[in-house]
């Protein structure tokens, strides 16, 4: 098909130029795609642009993610387990005026709660404060060692160190940047081997394992 030259400032050309990126990535609806296709068939400039953009898209498609999925998941899981906040609900589905209907009841309830809290604080007996993170217990009970990595340790060093002794991260980092580990074989020899790995600063067995 022989292309004809269209004025570059025509409305049709401008519209095709705007839509070309999504024509190339295949996400236009059928009507838009066929309109752009018709224009491209007749416009040399748009043919060249579309080819360039297809090349850009192709160069990008081979780009691989370089992050460490397993390490990132271990870190995120430890953050979730260390934080008691489970998924929370926000009343986005409520109708715009619905809060007004509940306002008097909410205010009354809030007042009652404040009053009850005041009574407890003033007159109530001292109680042992207990804080327990949701899900924290299983990770802690699973861990049999704790490790601190050097500040300049790379993710590769951390991974190699863990692989070398058959360990995995089950929690952390704690406030002191320590990680809770689960070792398949938590003997003193294996712990020493872990201490000797590049990037490892400190390794300690957890109490119950040490007493085995």
């Amino acid at each position: 098909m022989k292309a004809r030259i269209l004025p570059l400032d025509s409305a049709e050309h401008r519209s095709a130029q705007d839509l070309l990126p999504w024509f190339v990535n295949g996400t236009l609806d059928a009507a838009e795609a066929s309109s752009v296709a018709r224009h491209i068939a007749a416009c040399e400039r748009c043919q060249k642009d579309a080819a360039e953009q297809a090349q850009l898209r192709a160069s990008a498609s081979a780009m691989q993610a370089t992050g460490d999925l397993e390490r990132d998941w271990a870190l995120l899981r430890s953050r979730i387990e260390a934080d008691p906040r489970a998924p929370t609900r926000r009343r986005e589905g409520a109708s715009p005026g619905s809060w007004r209907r509940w306002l008097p009841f909410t205010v009354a309830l809030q007042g009652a709660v404040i009053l009850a809290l005041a009574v407890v604080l003033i007159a109530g007996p001292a109680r042992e404060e207990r804080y327990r993170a949701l899900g924290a217990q299983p990770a802690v009970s699973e861990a049999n060692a704790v490790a601190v990595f050097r500040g300049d340790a790379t993710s590769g060093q951390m991974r190699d160190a863990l692989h070398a002794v058959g360990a995995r991260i089950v929690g952390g980092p704690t406030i002191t940047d320590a990680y809770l580990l689960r070792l398949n074989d938590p003997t003193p020899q294996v712990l020493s081997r872990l201490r000797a790995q590049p990037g490892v600063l400190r390794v300690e067995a957890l109490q119950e394992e040490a007493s085995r």
Partner: protein
Amino acid sequence: MLRHFGIDRKAVTSTRRSAEDADVALIGRVAAGDLRAFETLFRIYHPRLDRFLGLMTARRTLVEEVLNDTMLVVWRRSQTYNGQSKVSTWIFAIAYRTALKALREQDEPVDLDAADELSSEDPGPEQQLMADQIRAQVFRGLEALSAEQRSVLVLTYFHDLPYHEIARIVDCPVDTVKTRVFHGRRRLRALLQRDPGAGP
């Protein structure tokens, strides 16, 4: 004509629809506190977010932090997903906002060496090496753009998202997305032409 650009619309649409259905089912389970479902969602989105954030922020250290923060928000706010957009759009919008915030908080210079990370660790034949060089040049060109321009280009060409979804992610009108992509690719082309041996 679409096939000329390597696109099979029917196959793409069908694959996307089943992936969207799976995402909606997963996010429902996550909202109920199912950590295993969240892990599945994390494993699906980690590579996509890693690529997006890697190109958007151009800083490896920031990518890990932003990705982690993004998925933590997904976990905590999963019950606020109301089905008005795709799950992927919702997650990418969180990632975009988190990345922009992190970029604004940082004033350290962009790490130009990060482009090297895009090269294969195991260089193969000459052709592969050439492709790696072109990708590195594209990456350097993208770095010279603003985060806003870079984001819409990455979402368009590297994630194959439609313009209306990109508009939702970056929270701006569709026409703004089209304008940003138009000017962004013009600037990218000029930058790549200045870079010897560059691609498009």
